C-alpha cells in the first residue's frame, strides 16, 4: 500500500519536477564503468612506455576502439551526473548553480566528443 495521497500520485514528480532518471543513470553508468575502467587501467599499464606506432596500432584494433568509446561515453556521462549533484549540494546562489551546471554539461560534451572523435580518427587511420 502506498502512503502517498491520490493527488500526490497524480502530480507524481514532487518539487524536483523529475523522477528517478538521474539516480538510475548514475547507477547504470557506474555498473558499466566497473569492467570498462578496469579494462582501461589494464590497457594503460600495457601501453605504458610504448612508442607512438605501438599505441596507434593498439587503438586501431576494433575491440579496443569500441571499448574505449564505451568507456569515454560512460565516463563523461557518469562524471557529469556526479558533478551535478556536488554543485546542487554546495552552491547556494541560484544563478551560480545554474551557470556551473551548464558549464559542466557543456564541458563534458565537448571533452567527451573530442575524445570520441580522436578515437575514431586513429581507428579509421585518417
Amino acid at each position, binding site marked *: 500500500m502506498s502512503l502517498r495521497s491520490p493527488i500526490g500520485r497524480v502530480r507524481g514528480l514532487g518539487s524536483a519536477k523529475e523522477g528517478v532518471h538521474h539516480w538510475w543513470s548514475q547507477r547504470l553508468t557506474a*555498473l558499466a564503468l566497473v569492467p570498462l575502467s*578496469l579494462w582501461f587501467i589494464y590497457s594503460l599499464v600495457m601501453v605504458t612506455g610504448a612508442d*607512438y606506432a605501438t599505441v*596507434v596500432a593498439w587503438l586501431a584494433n576494433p575491440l579496443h576502439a569500441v571499448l574505449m568509446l564505451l568507456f569515454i561515453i560512460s565516463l563523461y556521462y557518469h562524471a557529469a551526473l556526479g558533478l551535478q549533484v556536488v554543485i546542487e549540494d554546495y552552491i547556494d546562489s541560484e544563478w551560480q548553480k545554474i551557470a556551473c551546471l551548464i558549464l559542466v554539461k557543456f564541458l563534458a560534451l565537448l*571533452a567527451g566528443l573530442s575524445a570520441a572523435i*580522436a578515437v575514431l580518427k586513429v581507428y579509421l587511420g585518417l
Partner: protein
Amino acid sequence: MESVKRPLSPHLQIYKPQLTSILSITHRGTGIFLSLGALLLTCWLVGLATGEEAFNSLQLHASAWYGKIGLAAFVFSFYFHLGNGIRHLFWDAGKGLEITTVYKTGYACIAISIILSIITLFLGGTI
C-alpha cells in the same frame, strides 16, 4: 540572511571525524579529481590522433616527476572510487548496511585501493 551568522548543521567543526563520513566525502573528492583525469584522457587521445610529435610531448609530461605524482594520485583515486562505488551499489540493493559491515567494507576498501595502486604503479613502471 546575511545578518545572522549562526553555525550551520551538522556543525562540522565540533563533529568527530568518523570512517563513514570521511569515506563519504573522499568519494566525492576523488570523483571530482577523476573528472579532471577524464579531461587528461581526452588530451592524451587527441594528442594520439594529432600525431607523433604531440603524442611524444605528452608522454614526456607523463614520465616527468610531476606527471608520476599525478598518475599515482589518479590511480589511487580511481581504485578508491571504484571500491567505494561498489559499496554504494550494494547499499542501493539494501545489502551490507549493518554498521559493523559498513566499517569492515570501509577498511577493506582503503586497504585494497592502496594495494592495487602499488601493484598497478609498479607494473606500469611509475614506481
